């Protein structure tokens, strides 16, 4: 059994079923996974392979039927959803500080986050005045402000256009380099996994089918390089 490695998290023997129309449909079947305390782990798989379910289990939004999730790291989990999920009645600034208690943060801290995710000048804008990519940046800033030790990301760039996605992937790597957090990103795009992932975990039918350690490749990566093309072919065969 391949053991899956992610950031400071140990997953053993995990089962999760969903009941649809009276029938139990297994989504995760006997899943084992370890997540490192630092680095970008990408879980890649087709839709329906259980990757979002795995992330929601990690975030505590779902409860597993069987098995164990052990968080080695002390600290909080943060989550970036597929959609930005900003509070439409709050400005960008207030959305970023949404999870924080008054007096626990400084103005400079938030200002730094705003320049880190590249939304300077939009502090007082409301979500519906922003583009999809900008909103997703705000969602990322909101998670960073929360200071989690692990950031979970559920296809955060899936709804963005090609160019915005490329920029956001670069930003993500940039954010990782500056914040050195453990990031777990779920995606159906193998290219995205190869561009950002240090650990790439391939999920198939609710189990880990393969995993790759890509930490020796530095950023920015050229995924048209022979090594990556080889890995990509291998993943495609196993996915």
């Amino acid at each position, binding site marked *: 059994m391949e053991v899956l490695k992610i950031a400071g998290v140990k997953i053993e023997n995990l089962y999760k079923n969903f009941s649809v129309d009276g029938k139990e449909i297994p989504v995760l079947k006997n899943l084992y996974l370890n997540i490192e305390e630092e680095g970008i782990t990408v879980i890649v798989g087709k839709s329906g392979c259980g990757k979002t379910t795995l992330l929601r289990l990690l975030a505590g939004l779902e409860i597993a039927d069987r098995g164990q999730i052990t968080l080695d790291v002390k600290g909080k989990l943060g989550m970036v959803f597929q959609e930005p999920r900003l509070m*439409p009645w709050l400005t960008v600034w207030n959305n970023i500080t949404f999870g924080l208690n008054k007096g626990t943060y400084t103005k400079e801290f938030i200002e730094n986050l705003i320049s880190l995710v590249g939304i300077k000048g939009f502090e007082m804008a409301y979500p519906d005045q922003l583009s999809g990519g900008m909103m997703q940046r705000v969602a990322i800033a909101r998670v960073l402000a929360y200071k989690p030790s692990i950031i979970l990301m559920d296809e955060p760039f899936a709804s963005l256009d090609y160019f915005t996605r490329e920029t956001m992937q670069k930003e993500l790597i940039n954010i990782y380099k500056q914040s050195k957090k453990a990031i777990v990103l779920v995606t159906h795009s193998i290219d995205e996994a190869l561009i950002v992932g240090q650990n790439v975990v391939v999920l198939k039918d609710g189990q880990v089918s393969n995993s790759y350690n890509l930490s020796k490749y530095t950023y920015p990566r050229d995924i048209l390089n022979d090594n990556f093309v080889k890995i990509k072919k291998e993943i495609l065969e196993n996915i």
Partner: protein
Amino acid sequence: MKFNNVIKTLLIPFLLVLVWWIGSYLKLWNDYVLPSPNRVFAVFITMIKSGELIEHVLSSLSRVMIGFTIAFLFAFAIGVYAGLSPKKTIYYNLIVEFMRHVPPLSLVPLLILWFGIGEKSKIIIIVLAAFFPMFLNIKKGIAFCNLKLLEVGDTLGFSKLKKFYKIVLPYALPDILVGMRIGFGYSWRAIIGAEMIAAASGLGYLILDAQQMSRSDKIIVGIFTIGLVGVLCDRLVAILINKLLHGGVKDSWS
């Protein structure tokens, strides 16, 4: 408002008054049945100068304010509870639907019997009139909170209470305000009816008194004042709502 829009808004009212004025001038109808606009306006000015009109308006408004406030407190408390526990709807839904269809004015005879012709029975009528639209809107706003936004609260480690006041309540605010606006309109209409049955002051009383004195000009002044105060109050609430619902949450019902 732009000058152009002011003209568009006032065009039809102006034409109606013009027709009214021409009809009166040509004596197409008896002056007693429908007095001329000049006379109505003259009476209106006299009543403002004597302070009579203001007194009646304030008297009606203060009743509405008291009744509306009581109704809002009840509607908010019960509406929040109902919105947060949708499974309990079945226990009270029938009675709410039943009461919603009974016009509060139909209760006037009983209310007078139980509470006398004093302020109490009038305020109860307003409470009954304003409660249901507010209750139903508050319940709806609270019950249909966006689950995706609530999950954001979960991932940020919010407690149930924190999720309520940081997500559920602001999310429901547009519905709550819509309910308040409708509720205010309902109570304004109900108070006039209640005052026409038993009162010694207020706009409803003014109209009834004018009827007994055969003063159709005063009746029209009363009707216009009711409409004007209603429109003004509604505009005031609308402006307030616009101030509160800045940015992303627009009022789609205005």
